[in-house]
């Protein structure tokens, strides 16, 4: 056998380059997986599973030989599959009709940036589909492998764990599928099945457990949430000279505002949070009556990355709190998967929200007819309407020190179609806006690589692979137009794209849209601003001190 590239002999060998160091080309039906560092996530801790009454809490690691599954794990998985085949037409259909045309193959950011064939959406789905064929179709039962079936073994469970947690449920592949097969749907169901035998990731389950108990993913206690919000209000006051403090759990307010908790602690999300406070304070004089909640202090919903049931268990707080506080409708902050849940699941799961009123902007009188049943409005819809009706005095030149591009977050783009509102807002608050190339934005947008519960440090290499297509497009506008800000409407983006940009397009900072709005917002009789909300000098103010 020839020396391996790690060995010195390899380089002395006269024909060194004929050594084949391709990964062995194994048939995909072979389920064995190398758990390489940087490509998998720590398993859910027992204590978190216990809080949520989820099965098989225990301490284990994916690199262990024995995963400590329950004795009847196979039965559990197959029964779970059978149940879901009867409950979800999507799952049933997507198991049956794929023709393996390959249109989706090179649409996944993980495949593009990493090159593992099992990250082609078609194969990711086939990992589950092959089990379906073997155990649920006549042809598969008789012909087995020949009919594309695979026996369900422990190795398959391990393979599922590896690859279903390498999918960010971004739905890009589904845009290109001639039958609309949505890998996210298969990933979600596959994760539910893994959940049944206690194989889930801590980075999804811990936020879920936190959210269940404290109302938010970060596990922030009510007083701390208020304390932090007040602190950020004070930081804002330092810059704009106006008290922007909000209030909490106030009954009888007209609107309840809910946003992801990532924005109250995380940088740069906190600046977006300061942006919300600023906007709400500005509108207060025009009659905005809005409150925040510590109980529904989480817009995001990591239940989406866990199971359908868990989505419902966490989401219930939004309507419950709106009802308790007797508000008229709910305004939602900038968050990606939160809006997938709000737009596609909330009303079905926890509605009807007949105790709320059809949303009407108190400032412009605009009826948000597209939200008349769910009664929840996206803040870029709200702000776009304000701008359209000239209710905001804006000075976009206060954002002249930034050159902005916009990253469509997967869920608002592909599970909602919120494409123009954020752009409209950005264009009105910034003078320098540049789009990334067409096949990387809007419905074709590339994921940040850290969605669906994957945005954790131990997954760093995988995330950077997945972030490459996005980072590459950012780099392009950076080189071409000197872009230095990447705007987005997602809290996960605000955490993970920072890293993606640091690696692939260093120098580009990540921002929420309402940070830019607040920078441009001109209060009556305000003091002259010399810095933006980040404390960075405005254009023409460099070197000046307060």
């Amino acid at each position, binding site marked *: 056998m020839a020396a391996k590239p790690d060995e010195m002999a390899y380089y002395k060998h006269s024909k060194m380059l004929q050594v084949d160091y391709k990964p062995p080309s194994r048939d995909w039906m072979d389920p064995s997986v190398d758990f390489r560092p940087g490509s998998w996530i720590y398993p859910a801790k027992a204590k978190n599973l216990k809080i949520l009454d989820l099965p098989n809490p225990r301490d284990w690691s994916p690199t262990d030989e024995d995963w400590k599954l329950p004795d009847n794990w196979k039965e559990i998985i197959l029964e779970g599959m059978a149940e879901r085949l009867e409950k979800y037409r999507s799952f049933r259909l997507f198991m049956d009709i794929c023709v393996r045309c390959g*249109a989706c193959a090179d649409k996944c950011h993980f495949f593009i940036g990493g090159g593992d064939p099992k990250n082609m959406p078609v194969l990711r789905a086939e990992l589950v589909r092959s089990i379906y064929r073997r155990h649920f179709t006549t042809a598969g039962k008789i012909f087995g492998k020949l009919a594309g079936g695979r026996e369900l073994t422990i190795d398959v469970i391990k393979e599922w764990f590896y690859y279903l947690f390498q999918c960010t449920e971004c739905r890009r592949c589904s845009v290109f599928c001639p039958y*609309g097969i949505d890998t996210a749907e298969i990933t979600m169901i596959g994760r539910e099945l893994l959940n049944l035998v206690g194989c889930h990731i801590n980075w999804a389950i811990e936020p879920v457990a936190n959210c269940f108990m404290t109302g938010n993913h970060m596990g922030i206690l009510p007083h701390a949430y208020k304390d932090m919000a007040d602190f950020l209000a004070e930081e804002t006051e330092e810059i704009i000279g106006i008290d922007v403090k909000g209030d909490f759990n*106030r009954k009888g307010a007209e609107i309840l505002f809910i946003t992801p908790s990532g924005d109250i602690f995380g940088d740069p999300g906190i600046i977006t949070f300061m942006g919300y406070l600023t906007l709400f304070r500005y509108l207060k004089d025009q009659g905005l009556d809005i409150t925040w909640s510590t*109980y529904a202090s989480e817009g995001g919903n990591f239940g989406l990355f866990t199971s359908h049931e868990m989505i419902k268990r966490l989401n219930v707080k939004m309507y419950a709190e709106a009802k*308790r506080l007797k508000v008229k409708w709910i305004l939602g902050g900038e968050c990606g998967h939160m809006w997938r849940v709000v*737009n596609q699941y909330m009303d079905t799961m926890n509605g009807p929200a007949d105790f709320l009123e059809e949303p009407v902007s108190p400032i412009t009188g605009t009826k948000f007819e597209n939200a008349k049943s769910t009664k929840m409005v996206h803040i870029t819809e709200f702000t776009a309407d304000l701008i359209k009706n000239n209710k905001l005095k804006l000075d976009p030149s206060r954002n002249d020190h930034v050159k902005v591009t916009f990253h469509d977050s997967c869920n608002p783009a592909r599970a909602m179609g919120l494409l123009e509102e954020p752009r409209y807002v950005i264009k009105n608050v910034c003078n320098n806006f540049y789009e990334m190339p067409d096949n990387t934005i809007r419905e074709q947008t590339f994921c940040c690589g850290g969605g669906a519960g994957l945005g954790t440090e131990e997954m760093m290499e995988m995330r950077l692979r997945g972030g490459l297509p996005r980072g590459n497009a950012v780099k392009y506008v950076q080189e071409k137009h000197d872009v230095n800000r990447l705007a987005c409407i997602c809290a996960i983006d605000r955490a993970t794209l920072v890293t993606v940009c640091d690696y692939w397009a260093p120098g580009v900072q990540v921002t929420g849209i309402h940070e830019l709005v607040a920078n441009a917002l001109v209060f009556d009789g305000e003091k002259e601003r010399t810095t933006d909300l980040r404390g960075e000098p405005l254009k023409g103010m460099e070197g000046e001190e307060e």
Partner: protein
Amino acid sequence: MRLLFPLLAVAVLILVAFAGATAGLNFLFGVVIPYVAFAIFVFGVVLRVVQWARVPVPFRIPSTCGQEKSFPWIKRNKIDNPSSTGAVVVRMLLEILLFRSLFRNTKAEIHYEPFSPAGPKVTYGSAKWLWLAGLAFHWSFLTIAIRHLRFFTEPIPSFVSLLEYLDGFFQIGVPAIYATDAVILAAVTYLFIRRVIVPQLRYISLPADYFPLFLIFGIVASGVLMRYVTRIDVVGIKELAMGWVTLHPTVPDGIGVMFYVHLFLVSTLFVYFPFSKLMHMGGVFLSPTRNLANNNRAVRHINPWDYPVKIHTYDEYEDDFRDLMKQAGIPVEKE
């Protein structure tokens, strides 16, 4: 193996038909098998579609591929992000008739050409060929199927004759070569070659992907041979076909072996169809990411199997944290 087995299977099928026809089992191959196959096809397809349709759609999960309906002053994309049933129908029609999603893949783009002094240039991605071949294949197949109605009808409906006329419009050769015959052969060949030479595709392809291609190739090839080369007895075939339709099957003599091969392969396709990926034909109509409107926030969708779940209520939450809340001046329900 994945390729060889389906190839062998089709070869065996052809041999069986040959053997049957030469052994004089005309009634079996000309009447019994076609009838059974057709019955399996109809029942099978209906059964599968009913099976799918019976499974509920708990959530409304369309993939939105354009601007949502929000304010009147924002231009929305009615087709790719439909908000009404009418728009969904248009989306589905474009999807089913024109393979819109596959086409999306293939926008002309400015490409970075390696080592080219000419700089970037506009080219078409290879996926366009997939769309084109897919479209050519499916439309040709449909046209050919409709053309075959002339065997089953008397008098022949005018649209069938018209289609035949158009299909043979180029008047090349005697009898005139149908354009669709050429197109479907080319398309099937392309779809096959693509599967074999693109490593990604070869890697994912199963026997179930090759078998229908070989089978359809066999059907078309035997049909073409019959029409242009071996020249079988068309009048006899019409008699046979009319016999099936009128439920008075008779088997005229001297139809020709090639016809039985053709018929047997078609029968196989009928039997295979309902149990295979070919059911995508029916499935595409039911796909929840395509056939639902994105109007979730305006019209509530009902989940028929919704059930109550364990939640953490506000009261429990306040009980946990009341003191902390009071200290921070956050209003509480119970003092």
